């Protein structure tokens, strides 16, 4: 490609500026500040448009950087010839505030007609190289060679198209990639993926228990529920049993009450009967004719009388017998005394008559006693009350007659009973003595009777004492029975007061099917034991469930880590895959890049280097280019950094390399080359070489060379 002319309306500091270019070498001797760089940029912008619209820094933003200082139309035109087609074109561009306002026109420079051979992306279309690569190749700045060939600049040039050095970074990047791939490798024991997989494998095995445990938990829960159910049933059974037991014992109490009550009633009726019998016995046949009140009155009166009589005690059978014997003896003595006095006989008695009288009386007495005893026995033994009573009454009648008889005989004899003689006196004394004894005994029971004249007292009158004793015994019986009856009746009333008698009377008899109290107690005990057992089991079940739950909790946490681990693994694997893909493609790219550029680059480098130092093709040049297109200086079989070379040599090597890139990278359409005073560091000898170099490259390229010094012209 050959630049023909440029016309700048306004572009940066350049204003209304026109320049023509020749073929081959164009040398512009201009002082610094003239606008060389701006001109170089203008040429680029004509082909590629303004770049860096997104960049905020003015330095990187063409639109800001080259907006006309003095205002006015922003843009210009450039005429060039495409060498391949030998067609001349005129590019006209004007720039607005935004990209959208930019205008691009392409004209056929000869016909002045608008051409559509290329679009506004004309630079890339013709040169087959993008703007950034263009920037880095065809424009060789002052500073680049001036500051010496540092490794960074080296790399920059090697990395022809980029602001940063991807070629330089290639090794580092690849190494980093390989390291990381190894670090996360699924095939190495130390690889993260390998380790993660192992870890997850282990977790997974542990998680196998999860389902089992969950099953265990749900089954336990089911069991708990069942057991709970059974426990409740048991509780009901136990409660039922308990209730029945209580009812049972209450019933027992009621039954006992009933028995007691029935007993009481029976006792009362027994008492009543006994009382009635006692009363009947007391009153004898009179009972029927008397009213209850009369009977009561009589009983009470009798009791009052006899209580009084016997207040100091009741004479017993023996005493009574003795008394009666004494009274009989007294009678006898009195009669004897009377006889003795009658006969005037002292100390003698007519034993015969006395004896026969006594025998009769004795016989009569035995009959009386026998009759009474038999009668009494008949009455008491209930054999035949009437007959008994009749016998007793007959006995009594005989006794009465006998008594009257005796007293009559006593009367008849009493006055004559005077003991004048020792016989009479003795008897008389004995009578006195006996009389006093009898009186003193009787006085106890008859306190109101006057016993002053005991000698003449008829003691036969007190024969009723025995009868009274008998009567009193009966009355006392009546009183006792009555008391007993009253007590029983009171007990009954009391009982009725605190018991529901009606219910008691209606109570059914113990049913036969009812279990026994003991049987119930026994099963209650058994059920309680089962209940406790179940309760215990439920407690252990709950404890077990809690334990399972705790274990599950741990498992859930493990599950969480497992799931998180799976995600991590997935990420790692994806990353691993990505790394491998990046690595493979980077290597491939590097291989391609080297294949396409390395060989042409090296030969081009050689070519330009020889121009500089003027050596023949027979001589080997001591430089090598590595995979990163860095030039190494060969000494004693080893590559060394060009840093070891002098500044001048470095510049030359670099320039040769740069040209080699241009040769290698631009295809059919050779670009123009803009040199911005790159030879400031060269000594004179080398400047000559540089000039030769310029001449040489001008043969193949249009060269636009700016310098500010005559010597480097």
């Amino acid at each position, binding site marked *: 490609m050959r630049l023909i002319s440029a016309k700048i309306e306004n572009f940066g500091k350049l204003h209304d500026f026109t320049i023509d270019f020749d073929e081959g070498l164009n040398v512009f001797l201009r002082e610094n500040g003239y606008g060389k760089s701006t001109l170089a940029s203008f040429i680029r912008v004509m082909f590629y448009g303004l770049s860096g619209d997104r960049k905020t820094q003015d330095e990187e933003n063409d639109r800001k950087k080259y907006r006309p200082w003095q205002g006015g139309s922003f843009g210009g035109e450039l005429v060039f010839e495409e060498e391949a087609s030998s067609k001349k074109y005129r590019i006209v561009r004007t720039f607005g505030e935004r990209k959208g306002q930019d205008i691009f026109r392409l004209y056929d420079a000869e016909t002045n007609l608008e051409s559509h051979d290329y679009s506004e992306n004309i630079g890339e279309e013709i040169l087959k190289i993008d703007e950034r690569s263009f920037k880095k190749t065809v424009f060789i700045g002052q500073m680049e060679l001036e500051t010496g060939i540092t490794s960074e600049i080296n790399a920059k040039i090697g990395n022809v198209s*980029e602001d940063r050095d991807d070629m330089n970074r290639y090794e580092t*990047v690849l190494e980093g990639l390989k390291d990381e791939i190894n670090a996360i490798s699924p095939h190495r024991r130390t690889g993260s993926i390998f380790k993660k997989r192992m870890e997850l494998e282990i977790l997974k095995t542990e998680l196998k228990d999860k389902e089992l445990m969950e099953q265990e938990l749900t089954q336990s829960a089911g069991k708990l*529920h069942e057991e709970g159910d059974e426990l409740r049933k048991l509780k009901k059974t136990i409660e039922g049993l308990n209730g029945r037991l209580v009812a049972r014992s209450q019933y027992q109490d009621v039954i006992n009450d009933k028995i007691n009550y029935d007993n009481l009633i029976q006792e009362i009726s027994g008492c009543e009967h006994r009382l009635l019998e006692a009363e009947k016995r007391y009153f004898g046949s009179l009972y029927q004719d008397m009213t209850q009140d009369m009977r009561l009155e009589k009983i009470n009166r009798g009791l009052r009388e006899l209580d009084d009589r016997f207040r100091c005690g009741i004479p017993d059978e023996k005493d009574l017998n003795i008394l009666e014997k004494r009274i009989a003896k007294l009678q006898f003595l009195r009669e004897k005394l009377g006889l003795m006095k009658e006969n005037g006989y002292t100390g003698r008695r007519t034993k015969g008559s006395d004896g026969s009288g006594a025998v009769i009386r004795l016989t009569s007495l035995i009959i009386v006693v026998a009759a009474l005893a038999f009668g009494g026995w008949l009455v008491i033994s209930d054999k035949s009350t009437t007959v008994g009573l009749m016998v007793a009454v007959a006995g009594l009648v005989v006794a009465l007659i006998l008594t009257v008889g005796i007293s009559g005989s006593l009367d008849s004899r009493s006055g004559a009973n005077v003991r004048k003689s020792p016989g009479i006196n003795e008897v008389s004394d004995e009578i006195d003595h006996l009389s006093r004894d009898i009186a003193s005994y009787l006085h106890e029971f008859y306190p109101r009777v006057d016993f002053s004249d005991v000698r003449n007292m008829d003691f036969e009158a007190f024969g009723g004492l025995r009868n009274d004793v008998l009567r009193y015994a009966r009355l006392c019986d009546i009183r006792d029975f009555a008391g007993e009856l009253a007590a029983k009746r009171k007990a009954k009333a009391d009982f009725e007061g605190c018991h529901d008698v009606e219910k008691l009377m209606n109570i059914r008899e113990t049913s036969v099917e009812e279990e026994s109290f003991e049987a119930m107690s026994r099963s209650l005990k058994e059920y309680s034991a089962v209940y406790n057992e179940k309760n215990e089991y439920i407690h252990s079940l709950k404890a077990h469930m809690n334990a399972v*739950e705790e274990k599950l909790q741990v498992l859930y946490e493990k599950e969480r880590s497992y799931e998180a681990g799976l995600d991590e693994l997935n990420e790692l694997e994806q990353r691993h895959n990505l790394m491998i893909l990046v690595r493979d493609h980077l290597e491939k790219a590097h291989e*391609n890049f080297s294949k396409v550029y390395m060989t042409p680059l090296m030969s081009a480098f050689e070519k330009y280097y020889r121009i500089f130092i003027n050596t023949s093709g027979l001589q080997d040049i001591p430089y090598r280019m590595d995979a990163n297109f860095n030039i190494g200086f060969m000494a004693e079989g080893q590559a060394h950094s060009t840093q070891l070379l002098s500044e001048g040599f470095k510049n030359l090597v670099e320039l040769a390399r740069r040209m080699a890139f241009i040769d290698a990278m631009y295809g059919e359409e050779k670009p123009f080359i803009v040199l911005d005073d790159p030879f400031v560091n060269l000594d004179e000898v080398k400047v000559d070489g540089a000039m030769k170099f310029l001449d040489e490259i001008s043969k193949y390229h249009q060269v636009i060379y700016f310098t500010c010094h005559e010597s480097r012209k």
Partner: protein
Amino acid sequence: MKIVHCADLHLDSRLNANLDEKKAAERRQELLGTWLRLLEYASKHEVSAILISGDMFDTAAVSSTTANAVIASIKRHPEMVFFYLKGNHDTDSFLNRAELLPENLYTFNDSWRMYRLSGNIVISGRELTNSFGGAKLPDNWAARTLNLREEDYNIVMLHGQVVMSRGESEDAEEIHLPDYAGRNVDYMALGHVHRYMDGQLDGRGIWCYPGCLEGRGFDECARHGFVMLDIDEDTHKVKRQLIDISKRHLWTVPVDVTGLENSVDMVERAKAELAVLSGTPASGAELENIDQGFLKEILDNAGSGRLRPDDMVKLVLKGELMIETEKSADFIRSQLRPMFYYIRIEDETRRRIDYRDYENDKSLKGEFIRAVRDDMQLQEDIKPEVIDAGIRLLLGEKIG
């Protein structure tokens, strides 16, 4: 009479997907708390019955804490009756946790059970199975055996997926809606689907999914809550309302970052969008770049509730970025994290790579891009990722 219909509470859900263990545990407690709030609400509004159409629990192995809490909560509200139909996730094992079930809890099994709630409100329910004692039941067995009286207001509880035509799956939990048409159903109280859905069953009845009580994952972003039915017992007129008592809402917020050049700009764009959703839009220039209509749609889906700091947000970065655009999900997350209870950044952006741009890039980078482009074995959708990673490395950046 007021009746609450809820389902899919998924109590004891592990919530492993998004939250860390601490937050997951907290969230589990919150789910339980929302259930308790439901009961409070129901009690306050004199609700007579609570219908739970399945999946009250996430797992059969319900924790004792949760089981006991639920049982206790039911016991604590003797003024309400509870109808619990178990779903595919839970079994009735939670019931087993109680040695003694609450008296106000009624359950169902695999044949129809009916409860007359009042004079003429009848609640029927059945667990869906397609076999009985190993024998396969006819397809529409459940529907065929459902006999409801015309004069009653009939609520039917089922747990499963409604379908319009049979054979979409062999799943027993398929509810073939046409089978239930003309069967005197007034309200089909369904469970299984996690978002609110309803539809007409026939001329008389409707079906309704209340959705889950609270969203758990970002697939459950729509409005959530329970359905409150207010039935006029004489006329059978029903007022129906979805009541949202969620502690937190979940939001999926797509942010288009096309054309942005760095993470800082992306944070600003995201903040502007989140501000609009929160109802406090800043009057920044960013507003112009936001599709307001799209955000309105998100708000409508959320039941017109606003985004609150208590909520959980998934931010999805979308759009195309230049290959050199700087983007760090970590940075974006760190900037937005303090704004919400939980935020997750999902990156769905694509790097825009126009291969023509690199056609003539005579550099290693250019070669690399071309090498990836020309790799016939590599899937197209992964190519941008490989190129992005390689270029980032060549630029001296870290990737991932």
